[in-house]
């Protein structure tokens, strides 16, 4: 009976030990993977160098604690390293998104300048058409009915695209 209880307790303890070890290894491995992905991209590494340095420091401290037999604090330090590593990844993503947004904004500004020029050209052509129609009338010829003109109000353009999408939280 005593032997059976001992075996059961041993199995339970072993299970907890393995599970605990796996969890620790999970944080550390995930942190190391995240750091590798950031460091593989030079622009991302440059943007998130502070977070990368902090994550690496936490991993070093965790290793030292584990070597000293302090498994509890080593686990906490692995978690800390993971937090910094994931922050580095998300920071690089945010910077990339900001760069894309800036590019699209630049493209829009260029197109808006072209649209402004097109509008000026339309006004000139409209004046030319009106002048020609008047001249033709003066010559005693009634011009054919002209097509409609759809004026575009500047105010309408300036207030464009104010609708904002709902905020969504990015998941690490």
């Amino acid at each position: 009976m005593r032997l059976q209880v001992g075996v059961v307790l041993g199995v339970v303890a072993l299970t907890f030990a393995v599970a605990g070890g796996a969890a620790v290894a999970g944080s550390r491995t995930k942190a190391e993977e995240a750091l590798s992905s950031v460091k593989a991209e030079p622009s991302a590494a440059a943007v998130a160098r502070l977070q990368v340095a902090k994550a690496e420091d936490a991993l070093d401290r965790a290793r030292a604690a584990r070597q000293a037999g302090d498994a509890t604090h080593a686990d906490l330090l692995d978690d800390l390293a993971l937090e910094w590593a994931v922050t580095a990844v998300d920071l690089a993503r945010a910077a990339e998104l900001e760069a894309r947004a800036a590019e699209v904004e630049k493209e829009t500004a260029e197109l808006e300048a072209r649209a402004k020029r097109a509008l000026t050209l339309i006004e000139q052509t409209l004046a030319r058409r009106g002048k020609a129609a008047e001249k033709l009338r003066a010559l005693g010829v009634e011009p054919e009915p002209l097509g409609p003109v759809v004026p575009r109000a500047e105010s309408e353009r300036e207030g464009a695209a104010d609708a904002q999408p709902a905020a969504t939280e990015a998941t690490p």
Partner: protein
Amino acid sequence: MKHTRRAPRSRWWYVLVLCAVTGGTVSCAATPRPRVLGQADAAAESPAAREAAQLAPQAFAHAENLRAAAAAAHQRSEFAAAQILGEHSLAAYDHAFVLARYVKAEQRLARAEAALAKTQTELAELDEQQLRLAAEADALELKIKVTVDKEPKGKLPPASPERVRARRDAARALTSEARLLCLATELLEPDREGLGAARTTVTELEEELAKGSHKDELFLRATEARTTCLRQLTLARRPATTKAPEAGVTDRLFLELTETQRFFAFRDDRGIVINLRDLTAADGTLTADAREQLRLLGGTAKEHSGFPLLVVGHAAQPKQEDAAKAQAELVAAALREAGAPSVRVHGAGTAQPVVDGRVPDAAARNARIEVVFVSPAR
């Protein structure tokens, strides 16, 4: 009565009591609060934290939980755990701030993309409107020319010899323009009805002018011939002008040529014109710079195959007319080699000078090769 005397306490007893009191005081004093917990508190109160609480609520709550766990560890006098959890909470706040920044970037991108799509649509509408208005204005202006030309013209009043020479020069220039307009029409629609008659009129005029005729009526006939050829060109363009997919092709090509910053392009009735000068070296071959320019133009013509090319040689002096034509042929060959699918050459002689022959640098300015991208639509 019996007096009992208390034995004096030893010095060691006092020392022992002092140590006990000191030890108790030290052990009961509060453990100093790790600095990182203060930093975490400051991060939690910052303006960035308020924004993160709104835009990244889960990450912010995670950071708050870690800060609370650090404080609890400190309360339990678990100094090392409080330190690490405090650092973790700081990292988690930083993460929440980064996620808030990500969400804001997402919103900014969505706004920018929506604005871009709207502007693209507007620009397309404007292009379409411009095209329609320009076609209507062209049609009206053509109608004015035709109406004016229909009116009976009286004889021109007698003029001085200078005036007669000026009229003859103007007649030559108008006839030359008529020829080029008819050639442009031919490039777009070779079998156009009415084009043959217009060409015959121009040829008759050219022959009379070549004989040295000074008849006053030549000027009026040349004006009419030019109007007729322009009308033919406009009518040849009409199907393409009214066809929606062709909208803005000339504008696009003009912009493309201008953006190369290699050419000064301008527009006339024929299409887009580029003047080239100093193309050949002393031995009569094209210079390296000329070859590069023609390679670019030929490549552009290949990409815009709807625009046939008309290469016109202009001479500064009558004796250079053949050389100008030969240079135009050389240019045409280089353009064909660069991929231009349709190229036509014409020697305009001295009929269309840019400036008066008495101007100091007239010869350099008047001798030129015109490369015309004949526009298939207005």
